[in-house]
């Protein structure tokens, strides 16, 4: 009876997960979707704690269980509440790592039981407790959970370190070959163990564990910090599969479905993310320019001359315009200039200038980066226009102010088939009457390529750190 209720709980859980994910993919329902999934999760967890039974026997160690849950809840809740909006991708990566660790730990414990059974009963032949013919299957799943879980854990930690700048990109020649070799070794050992496990060679299990962690580290190391969102999404789907292994292990449907769901959706999401930057997943993983960008201007052929504009002039131009569009980019995030930017916007509005933001889908370093950033500075959501709308408005715009954006306004994406970003839709700022670009130098952006826009007659450069420049601009305009 109780067990049947549990089945129902799990059924509800699975369905809420699907519904939740579905609603999450639509701005209007996203938030509700998240809550629904959370509710389902609570139901499934509570059900497990109170109704789960194996061989008619309930679970024990409630003290430990509730202790762990309480600790986890407190830490998780605080961490998630405290984190700065712009640091959220790091958080996600961290939590994802935790999930991987959880899967790996489960495998370790389950293997421990098997090991004890073997050792105490002296080896293969008299395995006793554990039904021997079931061992290979059991072991296979345990190993899968261990490997995927560990990779996802180690990888996420590295990704986390990279995003908050603790860890620098690092790669050595032939690293990709090394990685592949490592992976093959892990799989080889796993297969061997599955078929020849015995009380004398079980330690291989722990070697596999160590190697998997190592692989996770080397897998993420060479990938450019800017590509972390993609990598996290990939590791995310890994963890999903690891969870699904748990589902097989305990023939637990909600773990199975939830895991597979995330595994599938996560994989697709990863691909969609790459598409948005108009790159292939392979290209991201092998990091063709994700890392290259750091190497500075690739092939910086001289482009002729660019015009500079002084602070005071920009102040005038902006405050006597009718309609101004601000194009925020990665630089704004780096400079943490969102508040200063909002300042300027309000000031101009008070002077009767219509100010809007043009948000490119992949501006910054994670999808929605600019939305998060500006939302943090309380810029009203209505002021943020998506690329399509913005492109329609530019022709009737007097001034476009580009703050630390580069690739997303690079005409090469439309004109030069040779360019790495060729084909990526961009903001056609040239359509506006006048373009002011703020960046610190003529250095290229993420894609590591020159930007013709800066050399066009319409364009004038306003060099300096975004935050500083914006604050000075505000001062200037006030003094007009």
């Amino acid at each position: 009876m109780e067990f049947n209720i549990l089945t129902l709980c799990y059924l509800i859980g699975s369905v809420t997960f699907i519904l939740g994910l579905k609603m999450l993919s639509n701005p209007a329902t996203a938030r509700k979707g998240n809550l629904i999934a959370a509710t389902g999760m609570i139901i499934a967890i509570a059900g497990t704690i109170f109704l789960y039974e194996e061989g008619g026997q309930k679970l024990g160690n409630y003290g430990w269980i509730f202790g762990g849950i309480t600790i986890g809840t407190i830490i998780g809740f605080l961490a998630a509440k405290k984190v700065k909006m712009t640091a959220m991708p790091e958080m996600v990566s961290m939590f994802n790592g935790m999930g991987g660790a959880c899967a790996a730990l489960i495998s370790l414990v389950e293997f421990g039981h098997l090991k004890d059974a073997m050792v105490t009963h002296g080896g293969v032949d008299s395995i006793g407790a554990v039904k021997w013919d079931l061992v290979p299957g059991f072991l296979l799943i345990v190993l899968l959970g261990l490997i995927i879980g560990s990779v996802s854990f180690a990888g996420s930690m590295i990704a986390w370190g990279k995003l908050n700048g603790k860890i620098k990109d690092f790669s050595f020649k032939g690293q990709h070959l090394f990685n592949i070799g490592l992976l093959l070794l892990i799989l080889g050992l796993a297969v061997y163990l599955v078929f020849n496990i015995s009380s004398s060679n079980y330690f291989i299990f722990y070697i596999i564990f160590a190697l998997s962690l190592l692989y996770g580290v080397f897998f993420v190391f060479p990938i450019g910090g800017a590509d972390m969102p993609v990598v996290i999404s990939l590791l995310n789907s890994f963890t999903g599969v690891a969870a699904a292994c748990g589902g097989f292990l305990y023939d637990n449907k909600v773990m199975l479905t939830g895991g597979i769901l995330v595994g599938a959706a996560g994989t697709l999401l990863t691909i969609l993310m790459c598409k948005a930057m108009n790159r292939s997943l392979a290209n991201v993983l092998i990091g063709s320019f994700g890392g290259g960008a750091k190497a500075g201007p690739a092939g910086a052929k001289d482009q002729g001359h660019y015009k500079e504009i002084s602070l005071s002039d920009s102040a005038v131009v902006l405050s006597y315009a009718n309609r101004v569009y601000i194009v925020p980019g990665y630089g704004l995030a780096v400079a943490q200039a969102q508040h200063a930017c909002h300042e300027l916007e309000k000031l101009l509005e008070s002077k009767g200038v219509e100010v809007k933001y043009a948000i490119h889908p992949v501006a910054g370093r994670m999808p929605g980066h600019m939305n998060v950033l500006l939302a943090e500075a309380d810029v009203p959501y209505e002021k943020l226009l998506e690329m399509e709308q913005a492109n329609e408005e530019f022709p009737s715009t007097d001034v476009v102010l580009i703050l630390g954006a580069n690739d997303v306004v690079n005409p090469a994406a439309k004109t030069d088939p040779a360019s790495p970003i060729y084909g990526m839709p961009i903001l056609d700022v040239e359509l506006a009457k006048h373009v002011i670009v703020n960046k610190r130098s003529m250095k290229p952006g993420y894609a590591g390529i020159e930007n013709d826009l800066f050399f066009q007659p319409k364009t004038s450069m306003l060099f300096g750190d975004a935050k500083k420049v914006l604050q000075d601009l505000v001062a200037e305009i006030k003094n007009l």
Partner: protein
Amino acid sequence: MNGILNWISSNQQMIYIVILMIFVGIEVIGRVPSVLHTPLMSGANAIHGVVIIGAIIVMGKAESDNYVALVLGFLAVIVGTLNVVGGFVVTDRMLEMFKKKKKP
């Protein structure tokens, strides 16, 4: 070969569930706009926290003298909970900014 076939027909239902789930997973997020990529990733991240259930089972089954199991299980429960709670809370915070959208 034969072994595989046997395995397939004995785990038929499981296989069906897995395959169908893959289809659902792919179809369900097919239309997501790129602004939502990050929240969606974060939401999915919270969902795979369901692995916590495994941790709870492990923990609940551990004999009270088997300290290794107890400690590892305990850790598993903690990190699992971290994944779940943190995941959902962060996602919710990310999505706060879309609230405003419905107003106009």
